């Protein structure tokens, strides 16, 4: 991937990112930049390092090598105020991770109050506005356990939005949901994208990626194999590994027996 000038427009700038867990090298040199307002969808097989990449961006995982800039700030610099950077990055998890002991409203206000030091009135006003935005204004007094998975995930998105992030990271936000609840979460994300939010989204929802993404990144084995416009990646993938992955994901019932046998060999070349 070509190296760009660090500009005000560049939301994320990753270069030469490496991450190992012990002897296992999960990310093997990632270069990726995301411009402000861009929606980048990351796809790829299980274990390819997608979550790890996302978690490196807000330093939930500490990279072993390379640099990451978020909004021009180098987060991999040891002197970086990481809490300050995280404040500006919203993160949405596969398992929602709502605070179970707090009501929905308090889930949205606690970090506004404790981290941004907003007044109670302001925090509540912003919480209400963001619950409204995800269509859950009437659930402010509920506890997370009283909500469906789709509602919990929408609250989690509202919680991140309440911090006024410059950037949102989504790690398979719909993978833990019953199929009939996926749509409501994707609808909220679609709305965010339309409002110009910068988003880095790990997803298995190919239709969503095709429709919403400005760019699709295909990862396999800890490297970016291919990246481009959704129409190109989905319609005419340049790499064989991409094509095989898409074939497997988009038409799982048509994967033939011989292909399953051929899969591991196909992943090693290339």
């Amino acid at each position, binding site marked *: 991937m070509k190296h760009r000038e660090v500009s005000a427009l560049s939301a994320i700038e990753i270069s030469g990112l490496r991450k190992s867990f012990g002897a296992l090298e999960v990310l093997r040199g990632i270069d990726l930049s995301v411009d402000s307002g861009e929606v980048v969808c990351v796809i790829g097989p299980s274990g390819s390092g997608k979550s790890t990449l996302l978690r490196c961006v807000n330093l939930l995982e500490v990279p072993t090598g390379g640099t990451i800039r978020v909004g021009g700030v180098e987060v991999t610099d040891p002197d970086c105020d990481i809490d300050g950077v995280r*404040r500006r*990055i919203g*993160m949405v*998890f596969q*398992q929602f*991770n709502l605070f179970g002991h707090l009501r929905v409203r308090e889930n949205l206000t606690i*970090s506004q109050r404790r*981290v941004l030091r907003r007044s109670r009135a302001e925090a509540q006003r912003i919480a209400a506005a963001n619950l409204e935005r995800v269509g859950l204004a009437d659930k402010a007094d509920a506890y997370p356990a009283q909500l469906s998975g789709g509602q919990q995930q929408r609250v989690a998105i509202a919680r*991140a939005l309440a911090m006024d992030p410059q950037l949102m990271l989504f790690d398979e936000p719909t993978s833990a949901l019953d199929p009939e609840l996926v749509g409501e979460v994707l609808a909220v994300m679609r709305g965010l994208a339309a409002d110009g939010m910068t988003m880095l989204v790990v997803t298995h929802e190919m239709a969503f990626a095709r429709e919403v993404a400005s760019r699709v990144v295909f990862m396999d084995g800890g490297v970016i194999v291919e990246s481009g416009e959704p129409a190109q990646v989905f319609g005419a993938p340049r790499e064989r590994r991409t094509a095989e992955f898409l074939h497997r994901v988009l038409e799982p019932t048509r994967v033939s027996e011989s292909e399953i046998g051929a899969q591991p060999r196909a992943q090693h070349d290339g």
Partner: protein
Amino acid sequence: MTDGSVTDTNSPATTAPVIQEPGRRRLGRRRRERLVRAAGYAVFVLVVVGVAAAADWQRLADSFFRVDVARAMFPGAVTTALRNTIVYTLLAFAFGLVLGLVLALMRLSTIAPYRWFATAYIELFRGLPRLLVLFMVGYGIPQAFPDREIPGGVYGAVTLGLGATAAAYMAETIRAGIQAVPKGQTEAARSLGMSHGRAMVSIVLPQAFRIVIPPLTNEFVGLTKDTSLAYVLGVTASTIELTKFAGDALNSQVNPTPLVVAGLLYLAITLPLSQLVRWLERRAARER
């Protein structure tokens, strides 16, 4: 088991009789079980009735339930003895809880010396008898620091002596509670910009304490009973607790009724708490 061996010895060809036979045997076993249960119950009733008949109820009432002896204990049994028992318990519990929380956090710290210290403390105090620790606090420390006094006199000594041991147990309980809170909770808090400490205080600890309230209540019940050891520190008329109070009354009245009174007063504290723990545990089980 017997049924199993019977079916094992049968070949698949003789399926029909096999099904019938265990059926008949099960009926037989059920009748046998009913007989055994009835026999056990009969023995139990016989023993109870036998003891009741053999007991000299008048003597028993005169020994253990003398109204005049019981009446002579009041109001002191409540206003001084029970009150001190509760005060000792609360003080030792509060001290143990705070120290236990600190130890639990040290035990989970990334800083190795903190972990070592906490582990050493916990192992040490869990391995020592509470009475020995009380003696240490009551007599060892004053000898070692003759020009210093433990603040609060006997109250301070009991707090320290019982609280030090309670802290070791509570530390382990709280640590388990903290570890039972899913890692995703901390990750969500940190990704919202909370510091490690803030995430611990606002997100992890409230959920951890919800988990450990039942075991901590059990620790409270245990401490209530352990305050009976306070007498070894030489309590006075104003610092006396229930067991010593009852013991003194036993000596002066030459009658064991005070022991019954003290027992009932302990139960007045511990029984409701045990019920509370059961209720909390049932509720927690339902929520899961």
